[in-house]
């Protein structure tokens, strides 16, 4: 059964970064988000971080933390679950 948070994150990544020719379904849970086929750079990562902070009320305060969080969709979901207000997470 698919994880609703991971699905939300995939959708968020595709819409925030306007990834051309990529749909949420194309993103695998374990593929690295930075330095992979998505070709995201540091500004894309920053944009994603700002969007995630607003959406989930979390704080990512260093590049090291963002590297850990954005290691993959699975890592990101885990990171957000550990820090976000449960009310902001999908049931």
């Amino acid at each position, binding site marked *: 059964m698919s994880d609703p948070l991971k699905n939300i994150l995939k959708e968020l990544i595709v819409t925030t970064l*306007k990834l051309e020719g990529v749909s949420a379904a194309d993103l695998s849970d374990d593929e690295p988000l930075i330095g992979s086929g998505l070709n995201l*750079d*540091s*500004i894309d*990562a*920053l*944009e994603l*971080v*700002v969007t995630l902070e607003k959406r989930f009320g979390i704080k990512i*305060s*260093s*590049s*090291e933390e*963002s590297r850990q969080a954005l290691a993959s969709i699975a890592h990101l979901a885990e990171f957000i679950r550990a820090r976000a207000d449960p009310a902001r997470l999908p049931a």
Partner: protein
Amino acid sequence: MTTAPRNPGPSWGFQFLARADRILPEVIFRPLCALGTAVAVVGMPVQRAHSRAYLRALTGREPTWREVFRHFLAFEEFLVLRLRVANGQPHRGDLAPDASGFHALLASGEPALLGTFHLGHSDLTGFLLGRQEHRRVFMVRQRVGNSHDTEVLGEQFGEWVRFIWVNEASNLLFALKDAVASGGSVALKCDRLEFSAKTAAFEFLGRKRLFPFTIYHLATIFRLPVVLSVGVPAAPGHSTVHSSRLFVPDGGEKAANLARAHAHFQEFLTRIESMLRADPYLWFNFTPLNPPAP
């Protein structure tokens, strides 16, 4: 081992200039500076080659030694000015009537992203904005081999100006994020490509060349306006600040915002080129000229 990037002049040059400026009368100090500049022209072949390449692109012909010397001398004179301002000499930045973006920014009181260039007195505009207008400005700077003068200036204007050194690129963007979150304005140089995650091609000196475009991406991410500005020498004790109009990202599509941003940057770059054609020695990049776009 890599060599730290640097401006023309030896690492001890600032301290030497500072001491000489304190103890020597102007009538001796000036010729000594010119002599030092001549030594720099001869002794710094890499910066000399970059100066030549720039002057060649601007004028369409091989520059003379005299022109290269004047280019170096203009930079040296600016260093002396920075030194004196750092030591408390009064200096003002006066907005030119065409500085519409800056006028609008000051009227709004809002923070902004301030794009500037290694041109003329531009290096002082962030300091002057901070002190004259009581704005908190975070300046993004690359720490070069002889950037001691910048640090002294920072101490002089410390109440209003903070530096974000880009040499530690890994945390640069997060430092910018924190600066924006604190409500300050952020000043970034928009002519050198180092550490610029985003670039775009613009018409400059006869061909399409790559320039940093990160400032506009940051503007769309943080929803902050952008003003580009340069400071040029005016009457003694004064610089004139020219600026672009205000670029304000709207809530629309990112691509549309970036297209408007491209036109905004090109418009100001064209003005800069006109200024350089009127005074070629204002360009203080002794680094490779912006590369042609692929």
